[in-house]
């Protein structure tokens, strides 16, 4: 198992290298001059030239790529053209917010989605089955911004139960350890902050969870139905096991195999930043930041952000592979 994990980890290196090539050259195919974006349309030719030289944009592409790669190897993503801040710093400020939101959304999606899927499968053609599948259809089809706004109107404006937007109230302070507010407030035993952070995350996380939840529910249902038809389920019943044990032990572990792939993919997608949800709820995450970087032709920021998101995505996929091998003994690990 250990060597399997090691091999999967080593296989990440060429993947990440490939990503760096794609990210670098694709962004340079995009029309637009960063120097002009920085200085404005009426900047003098001399000034533009100086800025290009300063940023290394006057060099041939392969030289620029070489520099980018050399810096990347040292964990340096360069400076954002807009703000002249280090990109690693900018990301470190925003990525934890996205991670926290994604984790919270996946907790909603996985628990509710899987539960709905399992119950639908074990009660196939029941009222519960039909209604949960209709809900999940609605879940995948509903525009996120619309759902977010409706939730805001109901739970913040009318009922006043939940805060309208943001990550934390102004008067609350959290000592930053991981950057995940809920985790940090737990670690520092800061109960008022914990409550405030949880209250803030509920609505955006739920909004963000609807699509993955619906997909997970559907996959769980169809996978469970498939497994429940298998001979070994009949064997389990013939042993005298209670339906609860048959469903949650014998069937679920087999049914999980495709569900885990979907969970991994969905989580990877969420970590790429949920632009709509982050915009509506003013959530200071990576999605919104990256979008602004694209508008500003901030090559460095887009490169850095995309590298981070892509690397996270392949890492999540690797973790899914490892989890797979652990759940499914038929996958040869040696």
């Amino acid at each position, binding site marked *: 198992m250990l060597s399997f994990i090691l091999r999967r980890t080593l296989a990440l290196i060429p993947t990440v290298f490939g990503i760096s090539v794609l990210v670098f050259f694709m962004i340079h195919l995009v029309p637009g001059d960063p120097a002009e974006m920085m200085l404005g349309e009426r900047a003098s030719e001399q000034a533009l030239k100086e800025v290009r030289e300063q940023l290394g944009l006057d060099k041939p592409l392969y030289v620029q790529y070489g520099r980018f790669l050399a810096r990347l190897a040292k964990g340096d993503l360069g400076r954002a053209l807009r703000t002249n801040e280090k990109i690693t710093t900018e990301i470190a400020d925003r990525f934890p917010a996205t991670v926290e939101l994604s984790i919270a959304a996946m907790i909603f999606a996985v628990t509710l989605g899987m539960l709905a899927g399992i119950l639908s499968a074990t009660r196939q053609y029941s009222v519960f089955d039909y209604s949960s599948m209709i809900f999940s259809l609605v879940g995948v089809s509903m525009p996120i911004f619309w759902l977010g706004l409706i939730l805001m109107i109901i739970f913040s404006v009318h009922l006043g139960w939940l805060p309208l937007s943001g990550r934390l109230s102004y008067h609350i302070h959290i000592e930053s350890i991981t950057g995940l507010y809920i985790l940090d407030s737990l670690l520092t035993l800061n109960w008022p902050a914990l409550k405030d952070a949880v209250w803030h995350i509920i609505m955006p996380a739920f909004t963000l969870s609807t699509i993955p939840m619906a997909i997970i529910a559907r996959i769980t249902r169809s996978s469970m139905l498939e497994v429940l038809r*298998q*001979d*070994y389920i*009949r*064997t*389990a*019943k*013939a*042993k*005298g*096991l*209670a339906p609860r044990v048959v469903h949650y032990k*014998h069937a679920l*572990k*087999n049914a999980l195999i495709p569900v885990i792939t979907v969970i991994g993919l969905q989580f990877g997608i969420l970590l790429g930043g949920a632009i709509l949800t982050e915009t509506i709820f003013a959530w200071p995450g990576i999605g919104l930041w990256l979008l602004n970087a694209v508008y500003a032709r901030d090559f460095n920021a887009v490169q850095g952000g995309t590298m981070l998101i892509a690397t996270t995505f392949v890492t999540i996929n690797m973790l899914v592979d490892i989890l797979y091998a652990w*759940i*499914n*003994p*038929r996958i040869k690990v040696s």
Partner: protein
Amino acid sequence: MTKLLEVQNLKTYFFTDRGVATAVDDVSFSLDAGKTLCIVGESGCGKSVTALSIMRLIPEPPGRIVGGRIFFEGTDLLTLSENRMRSIRGNKISMIFQEPMTSLNPVFRVGDQIAEVLELHENMKGPEAMDRAVELLRMVGIPSPESRIKDYPHQMSGGMRQRVMIAMALACNPKLIIADEPTTALDVTIQAQILELMDELSRTTGTAILLITHDLGVVAETAQHVVVMYAGRVVEEAPVKQLFHDPLHPYTRGLMRSIPSMSDDQRRRLEAIPGVVPSLLALPVGCKFNDRCRHAFDRCRAEEPPLTAPKDGHSVRCWLFH
């Protein structure tokens, strides 16, 4: 003395969109403790449905047991609550299925799958159940069982897996094992080994076996008593020697003639029963075998014959013996 198992007028129907399939219709038979009874017939004649009905594992819907009684040690299983029934399944009555390749759960170790039954019915704890699992695997002839209990099913051959299924079935010293075509999916040499094993275990443990098969060779080797089924009905029932010596029903005779024989001098063509098993949704009127029977006459096409016993202990459902 009460019989170990007594099935009376069992009726199991399947209610489908295209009509009602009478998979098992008015089937009766009985089995003494420690003995072996074979149910023989072609695919789709209701053998497996009979077995699953005894276990009360008929998928419902679309299936339902609509009539009859199934007495096991004097208790009618059909009147028991689902909870009571669960305490019998895998404990007093256990089952071996046709497909060893798919009947074990692929994601659990075989040792854990055997131990699970023991933990459930015998109140054994983890290590104790594992020790017993090793013992059971040794009993069914699996070499180095201490290491094999840690195997996953995919690491074993078909014969090995069937041995594991048998070990699992034997775990709680059942009174009755229902074996539904236990050797059909196996190689001929392995088939013989598995049948021998079951025979030996039945003799040493005193477990009765209800063996379901379409293979008359298997019947001759293992059973004391035979029930021949056709289209959901019992068409003939007799002690094994009598059935082979003097088969009465044209269907049974047809089955016998379709067995290749090593002692035949002439090279004769193997006989087959003409036609195919009728669909349970569109059974012929009268005797259900009349469309394939070379002796059929008018009465056969009009009226279904009752099961009668022209000889002692040998009954048949055919107008020829009236």
